[in-house]
């Protein structure tokens, strides 16, 4: 028998009700998940993503520095003035040194690496 308004059959409705019922009955016994667990899991993901982004940033820095150095050599060879090459070299090195640079700036500003340490965060795997 099919409901004309929703176009959904009795079997489908009954199946959905059984699934919801089983979830409500068995869910609390099997899941044991809390809202704080969601945050904890999201935190683990954020740490993993941040590590990958730092790695990608470092790799981009190597490429930029390489382009800058090669560009500078060619500019010198062709006796042309350097334009973007020094920026690429400095920027690339800064990309590679993102974490030490951030840590150094933290210590310069706070006077001490108090509170959260950047390296601790990246090594934490989301567990504190």
């Amino acid at each position: 028998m099919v409901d004309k308004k929703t176009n959904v059959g009795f079997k489908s409705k009954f199946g959905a009700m059984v699934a919801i019922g089983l979830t409500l009955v068995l869910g609390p016994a099997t899941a044991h998940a809390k809202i704080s667990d969601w945050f904890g899991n999201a935190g683990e993901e954020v740490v993993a993503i941040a590590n990958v982004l730092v790695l990608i940033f470092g790799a981009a820095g190597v490429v930029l520095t390489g382009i800058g150095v090669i560009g500078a050599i060619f500019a010198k060879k062709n006796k042309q003035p350097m334009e973007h090459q020094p920026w690429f070299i400095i920027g690339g090195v800064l990309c590679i040194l993102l974490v030490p640079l951030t840590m150094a700036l933290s210590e310069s500003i706070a006077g001490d690496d108090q509170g959260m340490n950047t390296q601790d965060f990246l090594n934490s795997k989301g567990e504190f």
Partner: protein
Amino acid sequence: MADSGQIISALKGGATEIMQYFVNFSGEFSEIEKVIIYVFAPAVGIMISAWGIVDFLKLKKSGGQGASPASIITRFVVGPITIQLSAFVRALSESIFGEREFQEAETLAASYATNAQNAADPVQAGLSAMVAFMVIVGWVAALRGMIAFARMGSPQENGYELFSTGAARLIAATFLCMFQFVADDLIASVGGGAKQFSSALGL
């Protein structure tokens, strides 16, 4: 026939049962606080610093469009401060409220949640759970304030508006995180008694 003592103790028992829901929920705040301070804030801080380096590269490449020396310096300063968000809020709170005895800033909501769980009085438990919730809202507001500060130096953004937004959020965050002292001082201003709210919390 029940006497007034029995009715009051029954009401107190009922209130304790209801309050247990809030106390259980406040237990979640300690974990959420940890994730905000130890994961989200450092991640946002590193990304702000990285954004500063990208601005440095854009400065020459695109003729300075979307980047300026001010934006680079702002992001190099705001990024590391965001990583140490709890230390920064603590420093701000000491500037506003003076040096007072409280738990480490990193475990502020957790300390109120523990206080709620250990409280015998349902009012104490409820107040502690409420303050723990305010601390969490405060940490989120502080993080949003730092993001507003990070955008401040961009040429295409309204720097003054972002500065005022960031400053307002940061001050509100400090007041929310240190709500115990705000309530203490407000009550002392009106009623004259010192540490009234702290004693209501059982601290």
